[in-house]
């Protein structure tokens, strides 16, 4: 069955909200920030703007929430608000996907052990280091009493979250499901990124280079979507297909094919096959940065394009000779296909269609 995308919320390096997302996509590539690491090396990053999480409207409910949970709460709340729907609390579910989850708070807890000893650690830090703490905050703040799930895995976490959300809608268990992803860029994770992956000298991700050793610039952020069994007043798209398999060309070429090449895969040469599908191509990682669970941000860009019937220029086209979307312009878009690859050779696909 089809699931309707009735609302979305986003908190990313582009800022908070769809207006900020639109502005960033219109602007195209922008240089990353540079952070100095404790070992003296520099790391280019796409972090949240400093004020992105400033929001007092939830009062005490999120006063103890860590950064990841706060990010998820704001994006999820925005998605619900965007949909202008008041769900029955017992009929709405929540799925939170993450590549690395609450790693920053986990390291904070390890710091507690080293600093104070095993018997004197903070119970608050421990409870927030549990991987489903962000989901717990979202559920509590938004009164979600249906099923609530957290999936944490480097590859395809959001795709599995979407599959699950669709199943809850299809089975009639839920009328609505808030589904999203969140990942943050804590201090230790910056060190890991710098140590494991190569940064591009000019600060530009090159999704269409299909490089065997691609460069990466880590990003962070969260995007949530309200999926529903029925269209709401603000429905902007339908989720027609979610498939986790080997690469299979779409039956009908979509209006736009987003490749999620972002440098997080050790070898991106596998993207050459989906790039040859014949569809017009785009890749928006140079706007958000590299994130193993970056699909929600790419999906937000796709939903915005379908909603506004505009195609945003791919920010770093390179000289691949491929049929890229090179100019931002209004145009009829019936469907957008997103493809992300796994280092084991499998691929995950999402297809969105325009709802009018």
């Amino acid at each position, binding site marked *: 069955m089809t699931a309707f995308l009735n609302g979305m919320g986003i908190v990313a390096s582009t800022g908070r909200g769809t207006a900020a997302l639109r502005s960033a996509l219109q602007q195209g590539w922008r240089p990353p920030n540079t952070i100095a690491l404790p070992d003296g090396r520099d790391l280019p990053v796409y972090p949240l703007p400093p004020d992105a999480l400033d929001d007092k409207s939830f009062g005490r409910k999120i006063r103890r929430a860590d950064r990841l949970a706060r990010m998820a709460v704001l994006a999820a709340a925005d998605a619900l608000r965007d949909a202008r729907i008041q769900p029955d609390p017992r009929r709405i579910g929540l799925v939170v996907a993450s590549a690395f989850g609450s790693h920053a708070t986990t390291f904070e807890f390890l710091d507690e052990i080293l600093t104070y000893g*095993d018997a004197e*650690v903070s119970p608050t830090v421990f409870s927030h280091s549990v991987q489903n703490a962000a989901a717990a905050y979202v559920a509590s703040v938004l009164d979600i009493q*249906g099923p609530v799930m*957290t999936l944490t895995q480097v590859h395809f976490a959001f795709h599995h979250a979407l*599959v699950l959300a669709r199943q809850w809608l299809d089975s009639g268990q839920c009328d609505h499901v808030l589904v999203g992803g969140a990942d943050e860029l804590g201090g230790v994770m910056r*060190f*890991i990124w710098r140590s494991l992956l190569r940064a591009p000298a000019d600060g530009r991700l090159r999704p269409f280079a299909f490089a065997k050793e691609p460069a990466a610039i880590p990003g962070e952020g969260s995007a949530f979507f309200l999926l529903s069994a029925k269209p709401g007043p603000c429905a902007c798209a339908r989720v027609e297909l979610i498939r986790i398999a080997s690469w299979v060309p779409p039956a009908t070429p979509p209006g736009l094919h987003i490749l999620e090449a972002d440098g997080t895969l050790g070898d991106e040469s596998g993207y050459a096959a989906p790039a040859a599908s014949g569809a017009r191509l785009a890749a928006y990682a140079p706007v958000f940065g590299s994130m193993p669970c970056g699909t929600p941000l790419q999906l937000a860009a796709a939903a915005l394009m379908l909603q506004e019937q505009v195609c945003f220029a791919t920010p770093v086209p390179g000289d691949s000779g491929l049929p890229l979307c090179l100019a931002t312009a209004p145009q009829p878009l019936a469907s957008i296909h997103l493809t992300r690859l796994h280092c084991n050779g499998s691929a995950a696909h999402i297809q969105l269609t325009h709802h009018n």
Partner: protein
Amino acid sequence: MAAIGISGLGAVSSLGNTIPETLESFRVGRTRPGRLTLFESPLDLPVFEAARFHAEHPYSDGHRTREMALHAAREALADAALDRTALDAARVGICLGTTVASQLNDLAFYRSYKTTGTAPLAPVRRYLKGNLAEAVAAGLGVRAITATVTNACSSGADAIAIGAQWIEAGLCDIVLAGGADELNRVPLSGFHALGLSSPLPCRPFDRRRSGLNLGEGAGVLIMESPAHAAARGHAPRLALCGHGTACDAHHLTAPHPEGRGLSAALERALDLAGLRPGDIAFVNAHGTGTQDNDLIEGRALAAVFGHSLPVLSTKGFTGHTLGAAGGLEAVFTGLALRERWLPPSAGFEEQDERIPITPLSERTEICGRFAISTSLAFGGNNTALLIGLTEGGAP
């Protein structure tokens, strides 16, 4: 929902490395936790180590959770009479819950980073390759869709519910589902900090209960679509007949005072199975031995099933195995249905007048075909799995 066959069971815990060893431990009442030997800790807390597993299956490179999960998965596949050829020909899913294996909580790595600004990357690479479901797929050598559920202490049960939905939706023919977790210094100190650990052997539902003991292990079920089972002439004796999941939406670490989410999860599981509370032969409760969990859970169970339903917690045998608990306890529930008897609820001796259920105090024969295993978790998650004996499996 159409019942989904459970073709195989596998378990590793302090009770033993196999289903027969587990059954024997239940039979003789092997319930005592021991002192921690797996790693250094200044906390003198009793734990349930999977000692036989560590003695017989020396592991390396920090993959204890993965090794226990693989062991349980292999046993479950053998129980289901599914070999590599059968797996290669089927659409396979692997959905596993965990807590510890989902976190990069290597203390030596962090100590190095903290003191020098740099650290060896071996633990990071191990973590990146160690996603539990993917690692089990790789260990078994099967191509599968994989998902790792990190829903705290209900992760294993949630993974089973998700796996069932993969089969219901036609995504998979066979799903290996359950949970696995190792004893680890982080939750040991964390639960102690929360004031939830007992310095004594745990006493689920007992008036004198003083907290939980941590344990470790893995519990894996093989679920199979009816069409796939029929095509290979296999008639599973057990089935997953219903599942329900609901959130309290109340507090990060405390259950809802009325057990709102648990009640909803139980009702959903019964509804999906098309059964009434009176059809349930027993409940294998989450029963951690903490004040709040046992009080809220006992009241919610009594509200749905009445005061006289046979109830037990197996945590007095295994400790709280966190992400493994839902998987292990689903396995134990299926085993009990298959064997037609329940062990006593280890640790329970004195009734708490505030809890309107009385856990089993002696070995009990089972009357009925259906049972429920409950899992409650941080974050307010509640999951109920309804497991039944199939017509073919009924005595």
